[in-house]
């Protein structure tokens, strides 16, 4: 509750400061649902690795996912409490899974520890944008799933990708409807076309939402399991205009996302043209 108030306070102060310039479009901050009755947040230290994941407790509730147009949907979903990663998954947390250092010998065979590992990316997967602290990008939904399988095997806990309903519930952190956002408010919380300099930025640098979760909007888009059970990328990206930096923004993979993978068969792990595609993990109680 404390964090909620202080985060809100900071955001409100920032908004007030910006208000003189960006007057009228600002809306009052909606009332929040406090994350009561949820378990405690914690840090997952993955055994035998340097991986540490900050996991935020999220309460249960009910959310209605509504879309019109080609992918129209209107569905009320009951959300059970869960934990979600505080930031998008970073290379620091991914490398020990994908590329265990092989200096002393070959990498473990697939299945040696009950998981499969990615093939080598054809492109430099971080695109030279930065590695340490930067979100994983250019990955498929399958890669996200397999990472979660590895994490579950390592920790004995139930890690997986979020559903789109869980993702949006955590992204909203109690915000209802479609509140109008000023540029100043957006700049505070998200990396998107206007401030990202054309690339993803280190995870967790922008202000968190009311539940303490960073970068749900913008930066790397995040793979989730859609209402239809199929992969969907949520929340907009570093490359999207402000109009797409919304809780309801979704993108569905097209062949363009891997057009310049010069190999056939194309990788099922990597997206040569998916610089905007990452993920964060969720844990079930």
């Amino acid at each position, binding site marked *: 509750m404390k964090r909620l108030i202080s985060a809100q306070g900071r955001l409100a102060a920032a908004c007030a400061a910006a208000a003189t310039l960006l007057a009228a479009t600002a809306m009052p901050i909606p009332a929040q649902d406090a994350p009561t009755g949820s378990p405690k947040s914690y840090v997952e230290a993955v055994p035998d690795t340097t991986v540490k994941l900050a996991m935020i407790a999220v309460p249960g509730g009910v959310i*209605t996912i*509504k879309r*019109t*147009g*080609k*992918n*129209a949907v209107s569905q009320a979903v009951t959300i059970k409490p869960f934990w979600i990663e505080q930031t998008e998954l970073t*290379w620091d947390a991914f*490398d*020990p899974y994908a*590329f265990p*250092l*092989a*200096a*002393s*010998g*070959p*990498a473990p065979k697939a299945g040696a520890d009950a998981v499969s590992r990615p*093939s080598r*990316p054809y492109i*430099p*997967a*971080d*695109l*030279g944008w*930065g*590695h*340490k602290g930067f979100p994983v990008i250019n990955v498929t939904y399958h890669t996200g799933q397999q990472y979660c399988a590895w994490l579950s095997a390592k920790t004995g806990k139930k890690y997986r990708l979020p559903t789109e309903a869980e993702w949006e519930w955590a992204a909203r952190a109690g915000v209802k*409807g*479609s509140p109008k956002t000023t540029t100043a408010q957006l700049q505070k919380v998200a990396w998107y*076309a206007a401030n990202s300099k*054309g*690339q993803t930025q280190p995870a967790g640098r922008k202000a968190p939402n009311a539940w303490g979760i960073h970068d749900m909007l913008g930066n790397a*888009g995040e793979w989730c399991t859609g209402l239809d059970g199929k992969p969907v990328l949520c929340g*907009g*990206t570093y*490359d*999207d205009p402000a109009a*797409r930096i919304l*809780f*309801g*923004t*979704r*993108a569905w993979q097209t*062949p*363009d*996302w891997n*057009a*310049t*993978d*010069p*190999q*056939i*068969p194309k990788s099922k792990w990597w997206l*040569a*043209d*998916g*610089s*905007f*595609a990452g993920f964060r993990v969720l844990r079930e109680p």
Partner: protein
Amino acid sequence: MSAPNDAPAGNGVTRRHFLRSSAAAAVSAALLSTGNYAFAQGSDRIRVGLIGCGGRGTGAAGDCANSAPNIEIWAMGDVFEDRLNGSREHLKGLGDKLKVTDERCFTGIDAYKHVLAQDIQLVILATPPGFRPVHFQAAIEAGKHVFMEKPVATDAPGIRAVLAAGDLATQKGLAVVAGTQRRHQNGYVATMRRIHDGAIGDLVGAQVYWNGGGVGNGTGEFTENDATLEWQIRHWYYLTWLCGDHIVEQHVHNIDVANWAFGAHPVSAMGVGGRAQRTAPVYGQIFDHFAIDFEYPNGVRVMSMCRHWDNTPSNVSERVVGTRGVSDCSSNIWGATPWRYQGQGNNPYVTEHTDLVNSIRAGKPLNEARAVAESTLSAIMGRMAAYTGQVVTWDEALNSKESLMPAVDDLKRVLGVPPVAVPGKTQLT
């Protein structure tokens, strides 16, 4: 509730990102638009043979078939039957552009000869690079147009063979395009044109990089007795005779951009290299890092760095420095006359085939053999400098008698893995 938006994410232009997301869509649109095939005639069908049916060969066959109208994949060859069958299965996605029959599938060491004996006009050479000189020579002698993947040799005798065959191609009016696809990427072409027009003044230096994470993993237990010819070809990346080492196999792309920018090849090389992460025997003999100081004409120096190190930041790029500015060669110029490429993106892996086919149909065959041979030798010269620890000149590299190629005969023969080079001890011959 937020308004939905079904547009795919990420179709902006980003630095060092070459209009990635929109590229494919743009290419598809461009290929379907009129005017792109000014030279295409209804009757000028091109039949294509594929030699080397790995992931890239299969990809190149698909790119070629989709690059222009009236192209058929006609024959296939690979040393290994399993590779050929897998490739053929994947190429079924081409529909009626795939005209390969059982009778036109060839396996074994001589498969390339049988493919070249078919009624094809164009051949794709996509085996491991060590075989390229022999295949390229045979293709030109057989009178075929050629698309060949980079690099085009792993040693100096191979380079000399490619240069000679390239000259023969010119005499015969045959087209040759290489897989140095940056030369067919819109952003690079437009930026390089400005650099050559003096947009950054006189060129005084450059830095080129391929810092990435390696290719494929070593597999399982390994002893010297496992190192049969077959094992080596299947694990070709870790043998210098097959791959050239990664400075030649991958970093050639960036060195090629430097040669393109300067309109010249380096005159000498000095450098360092070794094995820091990939030390196990299963990783054969190649290094996992190189840093080379290339000297170009007029005392210009180019710093080249490449590495295959996991869990480190990547950098695959070029940076050319002039007296009036700096360019990334791909889309940006900074300095006295700042500029950014804002044009259409393209998928260069397709465009390289479109350019090849258009040049054949126009009767104005492109011939990139010399350029890619020089870029490959530039990289080989860098490797020689790092392996030996000595300064290696262009003439020494070009005239080197050292042939890395073993007799390619019995696939079950145990070749053993050549020793890892030791600077100061390894000699250039």
